[in-house]
């Protein structure tokens, strides 16, 4: 049985999903697009279920790519039952999505989540009455604590078997008349069968001027199109507004009416959390707290990382000479084995200690609800580089890994914004590059030098942003962003999210790391690395770096972590400062941070912004890296 979770953003959908599926979840893309959904096979009540968590959507229009894909998924994929997750403290707005889901006539139940929050705000909901009006079961839950989740799925299972569909709730008479007339026309021409939707749903979408359905129709010259326009005009004349406004107003009124008939408002309990925003979003204190939070965050990541990295790295590098005692170090076998071990060392001891605390900390901030507040505080500044507040989210993700950062640019509405944000996100030092900065510069030169690199990086990004916005002078649409209530994050959910994001690194990066490492080992064994180094010698001599660094730069394209690892292997010792001067270390680091994105990033860029723009990004970053590194060589 396939159960699908649908709900607005911040409704706690993913918390419920993680409660039942969590560690076993798999993220997938919608076919052909990089909008993701998570799914998992779970055993409950002795049966196997497939549970799918679709992206949070406010409605089911085609305006937003995520919404469109979620809707297409529902219509195409033999869904047995939909669980509509609602934030009980935002019932009136949430009902607008609920009404649209009811229009789809799929079996459905409602999960009224965060009822403790609602009660705290003084909102008391008559669940029985709500259930009667909508014609579907309504189950209260507090997902963060796990309350009611089992009962929720138990009812979902029963309703899925019965294929229980909710009621069709009509709009006001005159509007409903027009809708019915158009539905009849649609049914006559069998159009609804093509899309596999109920005819009333299709009629509403046409009256709402939904671009997906309208585009698909313009191709056929059928008089249905004329009918659609006719009915749109009818509504426009009788109500004095565009037909899409009429329909959305109707839905809005309907939601409000239902809300008012089931809700009793009592006195809210205020707690300290309600006053938190007076500090965190204050015109002055807000920025100070932001700086403080960032400082603490990065400090935490660095200290935890360092604590774990040193002993682990030690351990690995002691193994190699041990093996050297049983296998002759001149043999091919030894080369291969040491290659594999170095690859493992890289993954486990160098990147993981930093990646894990970063992703975990980010998941906590995310679940807390702090990220949109960062967007609010930084919006005005981001305007200076031609973007708006929401772009900060991809940028923050970029400090962890560039791949989800590029995917997060989906939340920006214009293609131009998505392009600029993607290019800039590529330049942000991800966890892999972060380990290079810390392990090389902070360790061998000074922490201040490492900080200087981060600051330089931000300055370069700002300047690049300004240049790109000048070249693409479209006006960016303004920011419209929901600022959710603060929620106490659940450690279990944060861990599940962290694990999900780390899985990608572990299952894709580690094999690449090991293979890459082994290949480099082999190259050294067969002395072929000299060929590559010679090929790159113009570059390495321009940058004043040792010749052997050539191969390192190639492997850095495969996966950025490899740069550091390969460097150590190439120069033959972990004590880098013995072979390279401080200037060389700086030059190397700066070059590696800015040049060509890793292969995984290139793949995502290709899908998200297209081949031409990806090639531009590669060229842009490489040239930038060369210029900056050369300047470093002579200036530092």
């Amino acid at each position: 049985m396939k159960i699908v979770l649908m709900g607005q953003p911040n409704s706690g959908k993913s918390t419920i999903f993680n409660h039942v599926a969590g560690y076993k979840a798999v993220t997938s893309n919608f076919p052909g697009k990089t909008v993701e959904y998570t799914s998992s096979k779970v055993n409950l009540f002795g049966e196997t279920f497939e549970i799918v968590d679709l992206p949070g959507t406010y409605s089911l229009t085609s305006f937003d790519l995520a919404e469109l894909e979620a809707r297409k998924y529902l219509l195409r994929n033999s869904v047995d039952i939909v669980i509509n997750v609602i934030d009980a403290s935002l019932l009136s707005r949430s009902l607008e999505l609920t009404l649209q889901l009811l229009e789809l006539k799929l079996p459905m139940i409602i999960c009224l989540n965060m009822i403790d929050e609602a009660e705290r705000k003084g909102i008391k909901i008559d669940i029985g009455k709500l259930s009667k009006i909508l014609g579907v079961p309504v189950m209260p839950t507090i997902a963060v604590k796990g309350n009611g989740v089992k009962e929720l799925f138990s009812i979902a299972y029963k309703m899925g078997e019965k294929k229980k569909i909710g009621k069709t709730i009509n709009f006001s008479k005159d509007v409903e008349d027009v809708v019915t007339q158009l539905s009849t026309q649609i049914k006559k021409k069998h159009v609804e069968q093509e899309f596999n939707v109920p005819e009333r749903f299709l009629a509403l979408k046409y009256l709402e001027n939904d671009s997906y359905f309208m585009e698909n129709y313009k191709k056929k010259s059928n008089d249905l199109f004329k009918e659609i326009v006719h009915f749109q005009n009818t509504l426009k004349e009788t109500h004095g507004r565009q037909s899409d406004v009429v329909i959305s107003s109707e839905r809005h009124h309907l939601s409000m009416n239902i809300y008012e008939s089931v809700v009793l408002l009592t006195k809210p309990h205020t707690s300290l959390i309600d006053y938190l925003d007076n500090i965190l979003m204050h015109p002055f204190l807000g920025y100070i707290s932001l700086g403080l939070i960032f400082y603490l965050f990065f400090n935490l990541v660095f200290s935890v990382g360092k604590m774990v990295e040193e002993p682990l790295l030690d351990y690995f590098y002691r193994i190699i000479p041990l093996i050297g005692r049983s296998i002759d170090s001149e043999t091919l076998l030894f080369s291969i084995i040491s290659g594999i071990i170095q690859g493992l060392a890289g993954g486990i001891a160098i990147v993981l200690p930093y990646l894990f605390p970063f992703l975990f900390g980010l998941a906590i901030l995310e679940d807390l609800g702090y990220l949109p507040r960062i967007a609010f505080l930084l919006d005005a500044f981001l305007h200076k580089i031609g973007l708006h507040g929401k772009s900060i989210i991809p940028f923050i993700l970029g400090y962890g890994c560039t791949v989800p950062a590029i995917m997060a640019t989906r939340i920006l509405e214009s293609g131009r914004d998505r392009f600029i944000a993607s290019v800039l996100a590529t330049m942000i030092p991800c966890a892999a590059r972060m380990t290079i900065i810390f392990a090389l510069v902070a360790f061998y030169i000074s922490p201040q030098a490492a900080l200087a690199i981060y600051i330089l990086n931000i300055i370069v990004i700002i300047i690049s942003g300004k240049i790109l916005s000048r070249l693409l002078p479209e006006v960016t649409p303004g920011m419209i962003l929901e600022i959710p209530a603060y929620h106490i994050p659940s450690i279990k959910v944060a861990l599940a999210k962290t694990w999900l994001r780390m899985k990608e690194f572990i299952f894709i990066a580690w094999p690449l790391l090991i293979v890459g490492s082994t290949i480099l080992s082999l190259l050294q064994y067969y002395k072929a690395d000299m060929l590559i180094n010679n090929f790159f010698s113009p570059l390495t001599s321009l940058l004043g770096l040792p010749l052997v660094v050539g191969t390192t730069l190639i492997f850095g394209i495969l996966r950025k972590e490899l740069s550091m690892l390969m460097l150590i292997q190439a120069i033959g010792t972990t004590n880098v400062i013995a072979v390279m001067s401080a200037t060389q270390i700086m030059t190397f680091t700066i070059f590696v941070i800015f040049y060509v994105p890793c292969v995984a990033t290139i793949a995502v860029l290709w899908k998200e912004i297209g081949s031409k723009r990806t090639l531009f990004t590669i060229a842009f970053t490489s040239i930038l890296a060369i210029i900056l590194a050369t300047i470093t060589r002579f200036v530092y």
Partner: protein
Amino acid sequence: MTITLDSIGENKKVKVVSISGGWGIRQRLGCLGIHPEDMITVKKSAIMRGPILISVHGNQVALGRGVARKVVVEAE
């Protein structure tokens, strides 16, 4: 003379009259609960002509200045 949302001071309550924009902006504002006839309270204004924080139907939404300029309102 039309009054738009970006000119409203902190802690003031206004009613939405109309949204002067295309289908896209109407949809996006509508999704977050901002329709004609709705009551909005302005909570905060960010510095440097940054976004405006409003409260509508118990929920908080941040709107960029340009967007706020498209929301025509009348005082309560």
